[in-house]
């Protein structure tokens, strides 16, 4: 580095500049009104929720938005430049990328609320994007996009580049016009190297504000960890970037230190400090709003109601350590109160007076969360390395009994979307359906089916299926047979004997909606987190990842082959030379001569001795 010496501007230059300045001021005044209406914004929010199994859920939500502008991708104040350029370059109208470690427990943590519907993601990486491009250009753009994201997030998203790794679902995943691409990497390990670039997109990173709570050791110690980036871009709205991080943590309280001894308490009382080993000392200064919510689920609210007390921050069952700035009632889509929300404005707290929200239980309490109508799970059947079958089971959770009258012709719809890699060759004609143990004709249950069969080393198999189950059903099972394919020796991953992961299938229940509404909320109260909860959310759940063991070759095979061919060649050349060179008759004669000679010598020596 060199220092640069420069005299102050010449008078003439200043004169020119001031003229320019005048012009610019005029221009600025004209554009100021327009700018004020649409400026880049950033909001940060955190939602905390006690879970029935002694854990706690923390959901971070950061929204950056950029207004539509000609300078998008070039000049930014708050919005991350990298994302804006990504949107411009690849013509993305929607994109969602999630990194998940662990599996969302639909039974314990809920399956019928916006959290599980929007933020429960399959393990590993899931990426889907809708492009604003002619259909012919989409595949090439997708490939470039995966490479860019791979570099941006320090992950092996570039493995989604190969045409065997992504698919184009039409309606099973999200209704679209063929411009959606979907890919998943179930085995991607997620760790802080993915979180750091994700945090870099926030204006304050983890230096200030709510993100400063993200203390890595406590965040990665959790049971579930899902970091998501969702982009929406349009001509009229500009770009909206939602970054969410959902973690399920075990509160690190003194009494709850040992997992299995409850110390006489069913639920541990916890606060922010127990969850993150940190308190919240103020907001990110450039954020428009910065809020913390504590959500108390329906199960608890019902209990409080039963106990006859009012659902306030201090009631018969629990007390919140800090008095909230506002409390909200949450209604589900049937206009029934589902949960209560307590809001804290981080603006009112600073490093001298940090925010440390917590919940203290006064009475031991057991509650359960609302579940999806069916618990979907997927497993493998069969043995051996040749063939097997995939089974999917739908176990009724009893929710439908409460919701629909059990008349005879009532039915519940479920949509299944599943992508299977080409080396698991699924025979779609072998689909069998069992309802409560009895085999049923496919036409009775399957309303609509769309299958893209796999092609060897070219395309994965995609299946989209609309099912209709009778309401009275307890258990439905679907089975599909498959053959296991062979991979080329260099297509095997490093640990081939571990088996191959088949990405999670997605089951959605289009008749069930998990959206929430907040009737008492101030119309001026704008919270992107709650806005997301208000959005139309079809109840969805991801099934388990399947682990298929494939026949692995003997990886020393090439060397065996080399040795084998060498032996054959050596034998060939040896015998050829032999055949050319040796004369058996002469050799025999020679042998005789030798014998004779020896004999003669022997005799001779004998003679000498004599």
């Amino acid at each position, binding site marked *: *580095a*060199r*220092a*640069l*010496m*420069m*005299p*102050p*501007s*010449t008078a*003439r*230059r200043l004169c*020119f*500049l*001031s003229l*320019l*300045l005048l012009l*610019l*001021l005029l*221009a*600025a005044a004209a*554009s100021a009104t327009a700018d004020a209406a649409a400026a880049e914004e950033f909001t940060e929010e955190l939602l905390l929720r006690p879970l029935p199994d002694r854990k706690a859920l923390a959901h971070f939500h950061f929204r950056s938005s950029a207004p539509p502008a000609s*300078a998008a*991708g*070039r*000049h*930014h*104040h*708050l919005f991350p*430049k*990298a994302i804006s*350029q*990504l949107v411009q*370059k690849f013509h993305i109208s929607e994109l969602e990328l999630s990194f998940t470690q662990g599996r969302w427990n639909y039974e314990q943590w809920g399956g019928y609320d916006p959290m599980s519907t929007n933020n429960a993601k399959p393990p590993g990486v899931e990426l889907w994007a809708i492009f604003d491009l002619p259909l012919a250009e989409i595949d090439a753009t997708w490939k470039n996009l995966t490479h*860019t994201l791979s570099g941006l997030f320090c992950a092996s998203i570039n493995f989604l580049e190969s045409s065997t790794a992504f698919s184009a679902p039409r309606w099973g995943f999200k209704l679209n016009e063929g411009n959606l691409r979907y890919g998943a990497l179930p085995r991607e390990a997620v760790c802080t190297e993915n979180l750091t670039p994700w945090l*870099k997109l926030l*204006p*304050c*990173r983890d*230096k*200030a504000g709510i993100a400063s709570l993200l203390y890595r050791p406590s965040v990665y110690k959790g049971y579930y960890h899902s970091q998501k980036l969702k982009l929406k871009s349009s001509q009229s709205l500009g770009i909206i970037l939602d970054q969410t991080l959902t973690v399920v943590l075990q509160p690190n309280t003194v009494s709850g230190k040992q997992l299995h001894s409850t110390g006489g308490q069913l639920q541990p009382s916890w606060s922010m400090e127990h969850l993150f080993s940190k308190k919240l000392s103020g907001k*990110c*200064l*450039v954020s428009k709003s910065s809020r913390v919510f504590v959500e108390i689920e329906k199960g608890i609210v019902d209990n409080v109601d039963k106990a006859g007390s009012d659902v306030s921050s201090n009631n018969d069952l629990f007390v919140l350590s800090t008095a909230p700035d506002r409390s909200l009632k949450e209604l589900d889509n049937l206009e029934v109160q589902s949960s209560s929300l307590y809001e804290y404005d981080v603006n009112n707290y600073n490093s001298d007076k940090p925010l440390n929200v917590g919940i203290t239980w006064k009475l031991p309490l057991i509650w359960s969360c609302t579940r999806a109508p069916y618990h979907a799970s997927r497993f493998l059947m069969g043995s051996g390395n040749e063939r097997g079958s995939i089974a999917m089971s739908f176990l009724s959770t009893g929710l439908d009994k409460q919701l629909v009258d059990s008349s005879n012709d009532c039915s519940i719809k479920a949509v299944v979307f599943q992508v299977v890699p080409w080396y698991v060759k699924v025979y779609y004609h072998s689909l069998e359906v069992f309802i409560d143990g009895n085999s049923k004709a496919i036409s009775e249950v399957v309303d609509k089916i769309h299958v893209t069969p796999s092609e060897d080393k070219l395309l994965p198999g995609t299946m989209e299926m609309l099912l209709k189950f009778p309401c009275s059903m307890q258990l439905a099972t679907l089975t599909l047979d498959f053959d296991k394919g062979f991979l080329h020796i260099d297509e095997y991953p490093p640990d081939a004997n571990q088996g191959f992961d088949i990405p999670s299938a997605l089951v959605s229940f289009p008749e069930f909606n998990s959206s929430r509404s907040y009737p008492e909320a101030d119309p001026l109260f704008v919270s992107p987190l709650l806005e997301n909860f208000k959005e139309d959310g079809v109840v969805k759940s991801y099934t388990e990842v399947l682990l298929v063991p494939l026949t692995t070759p003997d990886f020393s095979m090439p060397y065996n082959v*080399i040795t084998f*061919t060498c032996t054959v060649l050596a034998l060939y050349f040896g015998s*050829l*030379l032999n*055949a*050319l*060179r040796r*004369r058996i008759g*002469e050799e025999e*004669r020679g042998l005789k*001569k030798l014998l*004779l*000679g020896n004999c*003669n*010598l022997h005799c001779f*020596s004998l003679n000498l001795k004599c």
Partner: protein
Amino acid sequence: ARKMAEIAGDETPPLPSSSGAEESSLLSSPPSPTAISGDEPPPRTRKPGTKRLVLTASVLLSFLVGLPLLLKSTEIHRSPLPSDAIADLSRRLQSHPPSFPCGLHAVFLRSGPGSPVASLADQLERAISTQHHLLPASSTAGNISVSVTIQSGGGCTSSTAAASPWRCGLLTAADSVRDDEVFDELLHSALGGRDGDGMKVYTIVIAEDDDGKGTRVVIGKHRHAWVVGKVDEAEALSLIGNVFIKYFMNGGIEEGETGIGKGEFMPVGSDGNVVLSFSLLNADPNDWVYDWEFKNIGERILTPVVEALRPVADINIESQVLYHTPKSSYSYSDDKLGGNVLSMGDIPFFVNSNEWHLDTSISATGRSKVLQFVVYIPSARECPLYLQLPDGELSKTNAFISPMWGGVVIWNPPGCSVGSKKAHGTRRQMSSQELMETLEIFIGQLRQLFGLKPNYHAQGMDVATKFLVSEKGFAQWELDLLYRHHACSNLLSCVATLESLSSLVQSLPRMIVMDEIGRQVELSLEAASLAQRNATLGIGDSSAVSATRARALAEDAFFHPSIMSISYASVEHYFAIYME
């Protein structure tokens, strides 16, 4: 062959037949064949048959027949590279480095009446021409054609060689008392009013004006300079030579200074793209948060610069504001200077690459170059922050550059002083005036990064010299200089790349060379010769454009993905594999 010899050896046993008599007493001596030949039939009654020969020959033949097949099956596609043309170009560049002919046109404005003598012009022309041996060897300028015009009250006389664009009588010596900017434009129009294609002609006007203020030299925004004052002929001649060689040809760079043409790299990506990324860094937003209106002001000020540099580089501009970006070097408080001081030794540690996520841009793909320009706003604790030069003075611009990386300006917000109160988290706007001043510093840094002087001191000139500043950031004659050097360095780099590619391909006979590489090499050669042709005509800008293209194509060929992806086995390895 050895095998055949062995076979032959078997057939005719070489042992002596009749020497056994004396040696037969030796126990170790082999038995003589003659001893037993008597009782056995001879080993062979007739000559060896042809059967065996045929067998041997057929095996050999089948190998020979198989060999072309093997070679055919292992054949590798190699697009022929025009290595002769590459060597030829390289030789040409070495023997005749590209030189741009240009013209020097001296105009003497005499105030006196009467028509000037024609022979005087020729005489002056010869006098000026003799000075050009002063031109340093490193200069890219080629032949210089000199012409002289003398204008006085009665009309103009030009030297014989001149096809002068000078419009006689449009301008008189009296005009030189006007404002310099105005005179510059007048002069520009008197010289034809266009920056023109073809050979560049630099004009130096000697305006005789006896106003007693002494002699002064003004170097304009275009390709001309003028001298005002009472100068005699010898003095005028030396001034003309001085201005022309020192500035118009060498950009004011002295011997021993770094700068253009002195081995400095151009901060341009090898595909001819540059991204100028401007970042406003708020070191600690808890103290104050500043924003800027870069979109309007920055674009407006920088667009002329971008346009001017277009033949050299395709420039994109980006800006962003970052928060929580502390510097990583240490500054100490100096009461005497009234602020915190950062010494020169700490500057290498100033850029905090951990916290300043300046980000390379997605638009800077491949081999393009990103230049970072950073405005650093110190936190309240370290405010005001000054850069201290080695001589103890404070830097006037409070800025420094890092070659090939970019530049940093430390901007102390207004009202910040030692112990100033935190304006807790208030968001403010950097005023337009301040932003424009900062951008001016950046333009100076950009000039410096491109190898020009950030500004000129009239060093080495014995008369007062003034430089008019163009709103483009670069005067026309500076741009000419840039184009010339850029064309030269790109041509050399293009040839170097092509040569290494050609020698690489020759050294690896098993390397696959795709057709596309061959095509790129040919196009690159074409562009290079076009650049050379333009150079000999003295057209700097189109030569620079072609040279950039030639270099980009050469680099494309060299870094073609197919070259990278294949591992090359040696010939031995190859034989080993196919013998298998």
